[in-house]
Each structure stands twice: as structure tokens, then as C-alpha cells.
């Protein structure tokens, strides 16, 4: 082994600024994509359990199509294949305003929406059917029963698997570097290119990811302690990475 460590490259020159900027972009894209994923996930997850067959089919088609294709392929698809289909004015606006960011956002949000959907469906299916029947028999419509009874319970049940999925989303945001989004992994590569100190650059990025994941996991454990329904645990959440 012949490698000389020089940790000072992390705080001299531009490295520190790049890392911070990368961290900021990672958090920004993760939070925005998380909202897209949650909305799509709750919508399609609920649709998969309603007693209306066409809705169930539509939601199942969305989930099965998006989650069975690698995220990287979706990144390329949204970045290279979708813009040529858009009207010229929209496309030009996009390429003037960070098209890679919006493409990565769509890819992450829609892909993880399909995965959130499975978590939410598992949560809804863990609720005894009698809850829904009781809700409907008190005169609530199906929509009201979902909004007021089923979803609030389901969302409290799925806190652990939903946390897991949220962390997956955060980690998967690193795939956005392939289309040129300057997120954390991209910036660690940039530091490596400029300083030729790969070990230090990768170590700093790795530590930041680990700290982010551990912090979120600890926070969500608190939330879970507060909101979990005693005696009920959601089953069968997908343990994929």
C-alpha cells in the first residue's frame, strides 16, 4: 500500500463548500421527491384496496410497472427520452432551469411512489376488515371511511417500514449523479477529481450519509414511540433496498 493521507484537503480550498452544496442538494431533492412519493403512494396504495375493480387495476399497473425497473433506467428515461417529446418552449425552459434536477426528481418520486404504495397497501390490509364495515355502516361514504378511519390508522401502523423506505429514497438520490445532478456523491467525486485524494473524499461522503440515515432513523423511532398503536404492527412491508 502506498497512499499518503491528507485530510486537510477537506477544509482547504473549495472542498468544504462543495460538500455542503452537495449535502444541500441531496436533502432538497430527497424532500421534494419524498412528497411526490408519499402523495402517489397513498393515492395508489389506497386505490389498490378499494372495492372498485378498474381503480385497483390502474393502481396495480402503476406500481408493478415502475418498481420492477431499475431507478437508473428511469433516470435516463426521464432525462433523455421524455424532453424530446415535450413542446419546444417547455423543453428550452427546462434546459435553462436545471433539467437534470427535474428529471431526477420525477424519476425518484415516481419510482418511490410505487414502493410507498406497497407499504401503504400492507398497512391498510393489516387493519381488520370490520373497521371498514363499521365505518360504512355508520353512514360514511367509502371516501369518508378512507379519509377519516382507514388512512389515519394505516399511517400510524406503517411508521417503521415507511421510515425504511424514506431512507432508501435518500440513499437512492445518489443515483441522480448519473445524469449530472450535483448531489453529495457527485460532489465527493468532484473533490476526488480535483485533489486526487479519493479516500478522504469518499470517507467524508460516506460519513455524511451514515449520519443522515442514523439521525432520521433515531427521529422516526421517537415518532413511532409516540404514534404507534399498541398491539398492532404492520405486516409484510417489502424489505427491499
Amino acid at each position, binding site marked *: *500500500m502506498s497512499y499518503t493521507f491528507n485530510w486537510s484537503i477537506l477544509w482547504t480550498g473549495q472542498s468544504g463548500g462543495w460538500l455542503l452544496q452537495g449535502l444541500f442538494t441531496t436533502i432538497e431533492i430527497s424532500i421534494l421527491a419524498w412528497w411526490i412519493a408519499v402523495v402517489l403512494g397513498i393515492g395508489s396504495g389506497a386505490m389498490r384496496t378499494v372495492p372498485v375493480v378498474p381503480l385497483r387495476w390502474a393502481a396495480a399497473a402503476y406500481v408493478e410497472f415502475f418498481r420492477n425497473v431499475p431507478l437508473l*433506467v428511469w433516470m435516463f428515461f426521464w432525462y433523455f427520452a421524455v424532453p424530446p417529446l415535450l413542446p419546444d418552449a417547455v423543453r428550452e425552459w427546462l434546459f435553462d432551469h436545471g433539467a437534470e434536477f427535474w428529471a431526477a426528481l420525477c424519476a425518484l418520486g415516481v419510482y418511490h411512489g410505487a414502493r410507498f404504495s406497497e407499504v401503504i397497501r400492507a398497512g391498510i390490509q393489516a387493519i381488520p376488515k370490520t373497521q371498514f364495515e363499521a365505518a360504512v355502516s355508520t353512514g360514511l361514504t367509502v371516501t369518508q371511511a378512507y379519509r377519516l378511519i382507514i388512512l389515519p390508522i394505516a399511517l400510524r401502523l406503517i411508521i417503521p417500514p415507511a421510515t425504511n423506505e424514506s431512507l432508501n429514497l435518500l440513499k437512492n438520490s445518489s443515483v441522480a449523479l448519473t445524469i449530472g445532478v450535483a448531489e453529495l456523491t457527485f460532489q465527493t467525486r468532484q473533490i476526488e477529481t480535483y485533489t486526487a485524494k479519493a*479516500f478522504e473524499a469518499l470517507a467524508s461522503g*460516506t460519513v455524511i450519509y451514515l449520519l443522515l*440515515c442514523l439521525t432520521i432513523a433515531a427521529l422516526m423511532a421517537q415518532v413511532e414511540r409516540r404514534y404507534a398503536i399498541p398491539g398492532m404492527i404492520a405486516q409484510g412491508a417489502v424489505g*427491499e433496498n
Partner: protein
Amino acid sequence: MELHVIADNFAFLILQGFFGFGSFAGGTLRLAAPAIVFGFILGIFIGLGRLARSRWISVPMTIYVEFFRGVPLVMVIFWFWFIIPVLLGKSLPEYSVALTAFVVFEAAYLGEIVRAGIQSVPRGQVEAATATGLTRAQAMRHVILPQAFRNMIPALVTQFIVLLKDTSLASIIGYVDLTKAAQIVNNREIRPFELYLFIAVVYWACSYGMSRYARALERRLNPQAA
């Protein structure tokens, strides 16, 4: 839509990109299949290690699992891409780097599957095995692991699906898998919509087909659950 792009490059995309026959040392399947096998072997030791009585074994194994589960795969691939030449003094081909990275990374997830599988064997089985005079190691080898493996099969198939999709990330260090093959063809033909949609369909067919198979297996192994 100009589907002739797919037809013209079909052999390159599927034979070279997916299976790995051709002038490049590539292929999605050629990376995924050995990665799951070696990853599982390493995963058995990690899963057993996490359940070990000695803290000197269980704590490092727990750290291993939590570390790799807290870091993006892209980062792990870059780590190996950099660290292997430093450790060995010479660089290895993309295939070896990618395979090492995937085995080490997947072993963390597979270790958790092994651990869950072992823990799913009813406690009475362990007690009965001990009562017949088997040592702990013998009970593990002859009684617990065979039953645990059976319970692990659906989770292993699911993990293989994940792995198959994740191998697309090997393209970022230049490994010629299905995704990279599509990129290569696209650089020449500039038909991103057709090409990326086509590989999406190929991935989808493998992944969806196997997930149906995993579900069927689960139902057969565990009829009361589904």
C-alpha cells in the same frame, strides 16, 4: 417510434448486455448470478455471526450490516473502484470490481435474511435437538439451518430481483451491462425513447416474472399466510 433500432441492435443488447456473450466482459446476468451466490455464502456467516453468543463476533457483524445498509450502493461501488487498486497495487477489470462490491454490499442484506430465517425456526426445534444430545453446532447444521433455508427461499428470490435491478449501477464504472449497452447504442443511434423503454421492458419482464414466482413459492411454503 422507430422500432427498427431495437431490431438492428437486438443481439448486442440482449447477448452482450443482458447475458454477457460478446467482445466485452459484461452482462447483467453474468454479474447478478455469481453476486447472489457469493453474497449468500458471505451472508450466512454474517447472519450466524449476528446471532453468535460472543459479543466479539456479534457486534462487528452488526456494525457491518448497519454500515452497508446506511450507505448508498453507488458510494460502495466507488469505494471499491478506488480501494482495490490501492490495496493490490494494480487495477482490476470492471467486472471484478463490480462483483466484489456487489458481494460485499449484498451480503449485508442477505445476512439479515439469513438471520430472520434462523429466527423463524420455532424454539421447540432447538430444544428438541439439544434434548437428543446434539451440540449447538450440530443442531445448527442438521436441524435449524435446513428448516431456515426453506423459509428463506421467497426472501432470497426477492433479493435477487433487487440485485438484478441494482446491477444497472455497475454501468457507472463502465461495466457493459444491459443499461450500458443501451447507452452505447444510443450514442450511435440517438433514439433514447425506444432504447430506454426497451431495456425497461426487459428488466420489467425479469423482475415481474420472478416476483410472481416468489409469491407463488411463499404461498406454497406457507399456505395459511396468504
